[in-house]
């Protein structure tokens, strides 16, 4: 090698016109598509996991003797998955050919709609899950009679003057109603907490990108 590395470097760049900077455009295109694809993948996995869980729980519930819980779980989670699958189909309609900003904005709107619908569903879902647990255990077979009736019988031995409504202690009904009201009231918040646990990082990234693009546009 006769020429020095330094001279090859210097002369090479003098001869070539390679130092023209590439145009800065579509900076966020790949990133925004990537982040939304990641969300879609996570969302699909989540739905599949819910289906798998509800099926397994349905089978287990028959073996454990609480089929009412299993069936109610299965039905309510199936409705949840069905609604969310419909929402996911709406996500596919977002135009990938749009600018990154438009694409992210559409996605953001979709997310807001999805969260709003799921918050409403959660206000019913958590109480239904609680009721299904109560019913399941109430009607669980306990040596020839429902567990609930058996429990009431035992309570009556200790507290014979307890007030009953349709054969159920009033205090029990009040406690159950109180829990139902709490679950209905906090259902939306529980859902949001759950949502942040699973998708928090994706949402944070999305928010950062939106802020960045907005300042880039200014």
């Amino acid at each position, binding site marked *: *090698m*006769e*020429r020095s*590395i*330094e001279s*090859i*470097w210097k*002369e*090479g*760049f003098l*001869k*070539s*016109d*390679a*130092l023209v*900077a*590439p145009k*800065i455009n579509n*900076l966020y295109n*790949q990133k925004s598509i990537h982040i939304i694809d990641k969300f879609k993948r996570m969302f699909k996995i989540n739905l599949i996991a819910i289906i798998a869980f509800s099926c397994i729980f349905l089978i287990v519930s028959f073996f454990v003797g609480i089929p009412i819980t299993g069936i109610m779980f299965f039905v309510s989670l199936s409705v949840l998955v069905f609604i969310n699958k419909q929402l996911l189909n709406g996500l596919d309609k977002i135009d990938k050919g749009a600018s990154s900003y438009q694409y992210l904005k559409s996605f953001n709107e979709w997310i807001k709609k999805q969260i709003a619908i799921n918050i409403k569903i959660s206000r019913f879902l958590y109480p239904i899950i609680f009721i299904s647990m109560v019913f399941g255990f109430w009607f669980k077979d306990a040596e020839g009679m429902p567990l609930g009736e058996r429990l009431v019988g035992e309570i009556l031995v200790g507290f014979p003057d307890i007030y009953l409504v349709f054969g159920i202690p009033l205090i029990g009904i009040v406690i159950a109603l109180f829990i139902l009201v709490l679950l209905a009231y906090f259902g939306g918040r529980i859902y949001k907490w759950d949502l942040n646990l699973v998708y928090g990082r994706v949402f944070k990234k999305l928010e950062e990108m939106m802020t*960045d693009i907005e300042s*880039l546009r*200014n």
Partner: protein
Amino acid sequence: MSSDFYKASILPFSGIIIKLCRAYTNSQQDFEDYYQEVCLQIWRSKDNFREELQWSTWVYRISLNVCLTLLKKKKNNVQYFVSDSITVEETEDNYAFSDESLNLLYDAIRKLSEIDRAIIMLYLEEKSQKEIAEIIGTNPNNIGVRVKRIKNRLKKILDGKIN
């Protein structure tokens, strides 16, 4: 990013950014992605610029860090990708320079380790040992010896290929 910021704070250093990005990529597409990402990161981190540094040092440092990060990400994504196996044939035609010797030198540089690539690029850009050390974050005393070793390695790779 305003075009004023780009024109005033990035464009004057685009030469070294381009050269660095080329040293860490092996296709035009990757090169453009790296360049855009570097520019974006410079813009994003402009508020963190510390007055005790020179703006150019800051720019070089960010460029280098972005290139290394992207390279690591790529390696993690494609486990079977081995940078040492890059050959001249694998380089896309439109990515090559008009000067054949420069192409060979770039290919040789791409065979070096990530940090050696950075050191030789900055050396070839006539940065002082102190500045190179400042950008990379090492001791300036070691830079001279390291440059010598890298140059010897490059000469070995290029031996017989360039007249």
